[in-house]
């Protein structure tokens, strides 16, 4: 998927073939000269595909022949002025068999169409043969004004396309051949992005940005930094999340960004089967060393561990969110009593590293004199991540190593995810209807289960759910109220938010997505859900 574009396959041979009124199908010119003979391409066995019956003309044909693939667009021009009332020709491009001929195909088709028109208008090709055999009354044909040489055309096509992947060849005063070959990319439609995904740019977007870009795209660009999720980006740039997703899809299509997850200290990561690459591909380990190291003088690891704070873990997973929000003065969105939010004084510092991260491809200058973490250390750290512990726990276990080696945890994780050394273990809250504490809610949940099994679409389910909810809330007024107060102790969950939550639970969405939808931290969401009923977490 992520294979880098490696240039276009060269053209092996171009030849021009016509149907001669007396000699039949034949090759008129080829470039490089005598290439067909040299590579043992027998024209006689393929001539029926090169100059085919009219049914196949004006269609793009490709034929496999030996180890070659012939791509052509045969043209048949009928006119009473020709000796046989028609004139057939074809520009045939030969490639080696196993190559992508796709980029050339539209160009070849266009070339054929163009010469069809030119031939119809001025008989440029038939006249260039300088023989009267093609015409009914050959003596009257005036060959004087044809300076056009097909041989030259083939040569220039071949050379320019192979060397520059484009060409501009004038034919006469009014016409010229313009070809530029573009790589064919897969259509972007199937990319499924959801709002909790974090785009991470792998090229320097600032350098390729163009004023003519879509306004939404321009507005979201500054926030694509590998930290902000799509929800976050849409809030920060004040754009619709769907538009943001659309933009990100485009960036993915052009291979400018990749999708990662939200970094939180409550995340779980585990090594993937590609962790071997860290050992076997020296570039990965090398890049990792310089990528994950903190800039000299960074104090981030000197900060006290979250757990040492009186108000424990509660918000530590919000670190990065808090960071990004404090940085962009987008403070209303997240509460940041978090211990790490104190980092805000060093946030400036951190910001510089994040921007570095967005242009990850280009390595920063090796920091003079700074000791990089050894590969062994990094390997051991990656290895020690596992299904059973959160980044937070892992960080505590390895705190001294991380501190000594000046490792930026976020970048360390990010690097692993990007290179697929490790992967994010997503967490899904699953609620079974049996385990509800509150009878009210269990009723509600039961209804939901019925709906889910009977395959009713979600929007229908929503409506019913809403009506049920409304009814129930009227009837069992005080119980509901109690519950309400229980849930909404510090955070008042609005009606719509509740629906979001119920739907998310119904659809078995991941914690990340629920958190993004509700704009709450995982801990908050967890406690809300646990107040609704018992749930289980599935890590996958």
């Amino acid at each position, binding site marked *: 998927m992520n294979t880098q574009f490696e240039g276009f396959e060269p053209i092996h041979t171009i030849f021009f073939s016509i149907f001669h009124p007396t000699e039949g199908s034949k090759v008129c010119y080829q470039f490089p000269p005598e290439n067909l003979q040299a590579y043992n391409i027998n024209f006689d066995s393929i001539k029926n595909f090169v100059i085919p019956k009219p049914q196949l003309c004006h269609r793009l044909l490709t034929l496999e022949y030996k180890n070659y693939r012939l791509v052509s667009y045969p043209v048949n021009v009928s006119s009473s002025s020709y000796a046989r009332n028609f004139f057939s020709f074809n520009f045939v491009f030969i490639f080696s068999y196993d190559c992508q001929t796709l980029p050339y195909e539209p160009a070849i088709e266009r070339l054929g169409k163009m010469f069809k028109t030119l031939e119809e208008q001025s008989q440029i090709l038939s006249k260039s043969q300088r023989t009267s055999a093609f015409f009914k009354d050959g003596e009257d044909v005036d060959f004087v004004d044809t300076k056009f040489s097909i041989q030259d055309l083939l040569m220039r096509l071949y050379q320019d396309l192979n060397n520059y992947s484009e060409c501009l060849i004038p034919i006469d005063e009014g016409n010229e051949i313009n070809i530029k070959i573009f790589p064919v990319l897969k259509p972007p439609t199937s990319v499924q992005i959801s709002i909790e995904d974090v785009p991470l740019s792998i090229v320097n977007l600032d350098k390729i940005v163009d004023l003519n870009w879509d306004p939404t795209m321009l507005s979201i660009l500054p926030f694509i930094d590998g930290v902000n999720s799509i929800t976050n980006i849409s809030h920060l740039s004040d754009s619709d999340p769907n538009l943001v997703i659309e933009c990100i899809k485009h960036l993915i299509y052009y291979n400018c960004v990749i999708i990662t997850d939200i970094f939180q200290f409550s995340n779980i990561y585990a090594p993937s089967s590609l962790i071997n690459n860290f050992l076997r591909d020296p570039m990965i380990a090398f890049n990792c060393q310089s990528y994950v190291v903190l800039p000299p003088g960074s104090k981030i690891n000197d900060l006290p561990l979250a757990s040492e704070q009186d108000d424990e873990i509660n918000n530590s997973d919000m670190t990065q969110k808090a960071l990004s929000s404090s940085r962009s003065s987008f403070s209303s969105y997240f509460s940041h009593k978090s211990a790490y939010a104190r980092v805000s004084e060093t946030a400036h510092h951190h910001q510089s590293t994040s921007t570095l991260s967005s242009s990850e491809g280009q390595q920063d200058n*090796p920091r003079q004199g700074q000791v990089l973490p050894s590969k*062994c250390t990094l390997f051991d750290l990656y290895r020690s991540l596992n299904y059973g512990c959160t980044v937070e726990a892992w960080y505590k276990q390895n705190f001294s190593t991380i501190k000594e080696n000046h490792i930026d945890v976020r970048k360390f994780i990010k690097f692993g995810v990007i290179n697929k050394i490790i992967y994010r273990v997503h967490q899904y809250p699953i609620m079974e209807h049996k385990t509800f504490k509150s009878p009210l809610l269990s009723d509600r949940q039961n209804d939901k289960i019925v709906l889910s099994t009977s395959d009713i679409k979600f929007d229908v389910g929503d409506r019913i759910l809403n009506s049920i909810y409304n009814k129930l809330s009227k009837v069992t007024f005080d119980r509901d109220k109690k519950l309400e107060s229980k849930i909404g102790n510090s955070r008042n969950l609005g009606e719509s938010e509740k629906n979001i939550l119920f739907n998310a639970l119904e659809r078995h969405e991941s914690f990340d997505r629920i958190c993004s939808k509700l704009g709450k931290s995982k801990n908050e969401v967890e406690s809300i859900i646990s107040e609704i009923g018992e749930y289980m977490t599935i890590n996958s």
Partner: protein
Amino acid sequence: MDEFLPISYLLGVHLTISTHSGPQIVYSYPPSSSEYILSLQNVSYKFAKRKDQASKSTRKVKENASVISTDSDSSFSSSSSGLSGSEMSTDYADESFSSDEGNDEEITHDMSNLGISTDKLFRLFTNENGNADESDNSDEIDNSDLELDIKSKLFSDEDGFEFNETFFDEENYRDYNKLFGFDSEFVAEFCCPDRELCNSRFEFTVDDLCFLGLPIRRDASGYWRKSKRKKHTSKKSSSLSHAKVTRSSSNRSESSKRTQSSNTAKAYPNSNSDVEQENNEESLDKDDLERNMNMFHICFVLNPPLTEYNKRADDLYQYIVARLSILLRYFQAKNNYVSKECSIILKERENVVKYSKSYESALTPAAKAKCVYERILSKSSLARMLTKCVDKLHKNEIASIKVGDDKIISLQIPVKNEFEHLPNFKQNAILPNSYLTSILNKKFLEKASFSSAPHSSSRKLHSSITLGNSLILHDGDDDYDNEDDDILNYALLLLDDVNNILRTLETTTMNSTESNDINMIILRHLIKHIQPTVPLNSYHYIITDALDLEPSTVTYDILRSCALHLIYWRHARVIIPMSSKFTYVVSPIISLEKMYNVDKVQFKKRFPSLPTLSYFLSKLSGGKSSINTSKDGDDIKWPYSFNNIIPSREHKGIYLDVLSWLIRRGYVTQLLTFVYIRIDKRIKIAVDEDLEREGYRRGKMQKLQMRKINKSNRSTKIGDNQIAQKVDHRTNIENDNLAAATDKSNLEINKNDPITGSTEDIHFEFDDPEMRQDYTIILEPERATAIEKRWIHKCVSEQPPDIKNTFNKLLKYFNGRAPMELATLQEGISRHELKRLFASLDKHLVELHHW
């Protein structure tokens, strides 16, 4: 984009032959517009997801469908208008089954049920003496699960054969003489290429339409296969040997075929005369075609999206086109099978057009065509085979087709549903319930087909020849024992209910004579007894018992081919024998959003007495509680085994059942342990000292010098380091200068030692106490260099002999790629020994855990 999804983009197939009177298309299928065929495929994918869920409920309907079909086939009036009526009702029934909603359908459903019972009676009546056919029919029905899901109506004729009726619907039908917009004569023309293009891959695309085939032409001296003998020896010899073996069974099946055709005749009372007539004429005409046909070409037509073009075309060619064509060439050379069949088809078409009353009475061209197709299909096995092939490929199923009377081949485009590395499923859709594992089933199948090429073909089974014919013959000589990756060390996990598999198994062998074959008996036994917790080796007794043979390579090979057969037919997966002592985790590629609601119900049905699916999944997630405990007290150390979630000894059996269910559905994958050897500084120093003592070293002076050099180097920039890394990356990650130092000194010892990166340069103080944790990892212990070997030996030098012994046995698996769970099985090492080894060599072994 959708490259992991099994969509073949296959439109159809046609058979072109070239005779002295020029090329002509003998048979083409389906006679439908390309838009319709493609729409069908897309639907089929969407519904495939719900296959399991719906298959049970649709079973009844399926039977109905087939009953109706027999009904209509044998109806004397054979007016197609009546037919479409019954079609409608089944269609509605389908819908009501697959989506249980709404009341209107409910009613139609009931009505169709009423109709069915009468149909059943009728069927019993018509089929009373065709028992073989009956079983065939019911089996076909099984196979058609999916088809009904996609709401296409199925009709199976007397031969246990079906084709898709909707291709003949008025709106979908295209002119019989047109092939995807081209005149068929014209297509025939360009599908009969010049001699030079024959006997090799033929691929011709017109705009988006790709004609893909392998035209087979006689050589100049009139032989079908001679010119290619050199190239295809292996394949041919294999098929030859098959033919010999299958000879005997072929006679039997031939006789059964006779009875079948007589049945057919009974079912078509008005066609009796035709059959006789044809029998008389056949001999004359056959000779004619035999002499004249100089080329045949099974040409598939497909329409893949541009970006997937190469993959789809290559897949189809590799798995279907080439295999089918080469097999047919073999039969043509042997007994003119293709030309015989061609003449049958041509004859039959002529007969129908000329004499058939039903053809005349058919009003529309589509109905007429249907008439022709029905008759051709009832007569020609080649036509049946091509039709079935296309129909099955449309549904991504395995086409198991009878070639001639004596051979069955099975073709499929493998489904990509297992991944070794985590796929980027946000960007590339993958099939739901895919597997994520290092134990790739594909590898076994590929290895089998590969190793079969030079040997006999018995293991080629999956590629072309089914078990029935291929198992017995095997000529002993074998290098399997040397291969460390023997399938017999693994276990098989059946992917479906045992009874379901047994039923489908009968279908694939097609006729009853063969299902009584000794191989079938073995296979049935195996399926009945097999447990995912037990390695295949343990089932060897089934074969020796059944065949009454002494254990030998032959018997082991039979077991192997049985296993491969089951994998190939998607009945089973190869796994490491399940055990409650292993660790299992929730697979990262499951999509709860898509699968959970359905599977939750399934799970409850399957295990009514156990907690919910989510309970098990969360337990296998490392569970919330376990995270907490590790935070507080760290009582259970991750990774913990499956044992930990089994509440009591009595529950073990059922919990393992649950586990196998979870693995089967792709929910859970085994967390495997991979091991590397790490060589730390102490070992290196020790080895260094040994070397010195042995007198290789010229003196301490040099070493000191070396150190000085190192020290002076240590502040070099990283940029240089990069170069050094490039030089040095082949086997080790050299993390410390010490390794480099030893390497340098070893240059004198071992001149060939390629490890010595002489430009290695260091940015760590080598005698820095902090650097104690730096080490070298040996990536390939089997190919270790001299110095690496010394290091490795040093690691175990102080261990007791039993540990040394275990270590040496396992040494070759310490490459980070071979799971320990498997290595212990292969080397017969107990878990206890392994534990001991790990405990005593803790410092020298690096453990990795992934799938």
